[in-house]
């Protein structure tokens, strides 16, 4: 299985992403809170570049003890990346589509060798 060079660790800050290609396949590699995640850059919706969009925390409703609505907030731990074509949101840690978790982007393993980050393009 080919390993594709992604970046030098020092040049890949936390919270950023890189897109690498292997033949016709594009892979988005994210670093988030010290961990790496990699997914195919192909949205389950209409095939858009799912990994190239904005990263936003999940939006949550705040419901009070009486079940009344108090407002909204951004999740403190669930980060999403958003396909720029129409807004499908993906859970950064799993690649699952936030609106329907049975839909999932293909994921890839990321390995670090010394200073170099690679993705295993299986």
């Amino acid at each position, binding site marked *: 299985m080919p390993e594709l060079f992604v970046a030098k660790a020092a040049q890949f800050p936390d*919270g950023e992403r890189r897109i690498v290609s292997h033949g*016709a396949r594009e892979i988005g590699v994210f670093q988030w809170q010290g961990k790496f995640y990699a997914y195919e850059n*192909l949205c389950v919706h*209409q*095939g*858009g*570049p799912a990994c190239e*969009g*904005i*990263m*936003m*925390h999940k*939006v949550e409703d705040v419901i009070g003890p009486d079940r009344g609505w108090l407002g909204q907030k*951004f999740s403190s731990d669930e980060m999403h990346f*958003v396909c*720029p*074509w*129409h*807004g499908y*949101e993906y859970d950064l840690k799993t690649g699952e589509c936030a609106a329907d978790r049975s839909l999932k982007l293909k994921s890839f393993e990321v390995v670090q060798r010394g200073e170099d980050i690679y993705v295993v393009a299986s």
Partner: protein
Amino acid sequence: MDLPLSDFRRMEVEEFDTSKLLAHATKQATERGYKNFPIVDVDSHHYESESIGEILDYMEDPVLQQLARSARQANAKSVGMLPAGVGYQDMGGRVMRYAVRGMEKTEAGVQRDIALTRRWMDAIGIDVAVMFPTPMLQLGLHPQVEVEVALARAYNRWLTERVLAHEPRIRSMLYLPFNDADAAFRTVQEFSQNKGVVGFMVTSARYRPVHHNSFMKTYALLEEMGLPLAFHAGYNWNDQTVGMMNRFISVHALGFVFYNMVHLANWITNGLPERFPKLKVLWVESGLAWVPFMMQRFDNEYMMRSSEAPALKRKPSEYMRDMYFSSQPMEMTDMAALEQTFRMIKAETQLLYSSDYPHWDFDLPSTIYDLPFLNEQAKRSILGGNAMKLFNLKLPAQKLARVA
């Protein structure tokens, strides 16, 4: 340019290029062989607000023109002449092209709308696109009827002279100032022969019933000329009923269907299909799921209350099956339901592919091409053939879009 995110971070964007954004669409076009058949997009958009300076040059009323120019100069974002409702189409920046589209560079010497439109058409594989405005979709709600008339005329003149005259791949159904029936009639008289004009369009978000007698001469003229009449959907959060909804998803999901439902109901129950049997009517940007609902609902009631729609000689659904529908935003989460809908609306002859690009919920041709229940001929009809017939388009044998 910096985009605000959900925490302290910001996303820096240095450039924006439609061809790059749509690279995957270009790949789809090659893989699916779009080079082998024409694709006509019956509903796409540009942002006429970006050319409003030029458009105002075409405004004839000097007082309105000065008012509009002044409001614009003071603060383009402040209250001015173009109505702008509350709305969040860009989804908090998630659909990034809204924020960064202004950064896109176009070649010198080519009108910007033409350059940008050609670029996304080539990227997607579309040969001919029917182009509509964006903020002006709300113009039917303008409290000053004379402003709708004046702006519509200025826009139609600008569009035909500056855009349609120069790019045969871009066509339009021109804006009808429908709150003034006489002005709407004059618009058809004046512009129907202009290059690139393939019909006329009523923005649906308005409070003007389509069965009013004052519109009959316009329908008759369109029928005589063989030009289609389109109703382009739009939402209006200021409507009291729509105003009960607090999330844009609801306002959009229902709002983009609501006015077209009302207009279609009036159109049918007042017998307009019997009075104008040759007038071609097209419903734009309400998706498709509403049509089976309307068919069943009205057929069922008509069987009991035919006395209230005495002009009809057939069931309401049969008239609806003679109408045309644009595809986007096509509801695609239940294939069986979609297949049923295609059968009910006679999609093979009545459905017209539309992208709605560059708006947030655009559909690529693959939304039609990849449907498992259509044969190749039906796909090609919906993607282009039906529109070519409806608009009487003569296209050259070779593909106009640059598709490998």
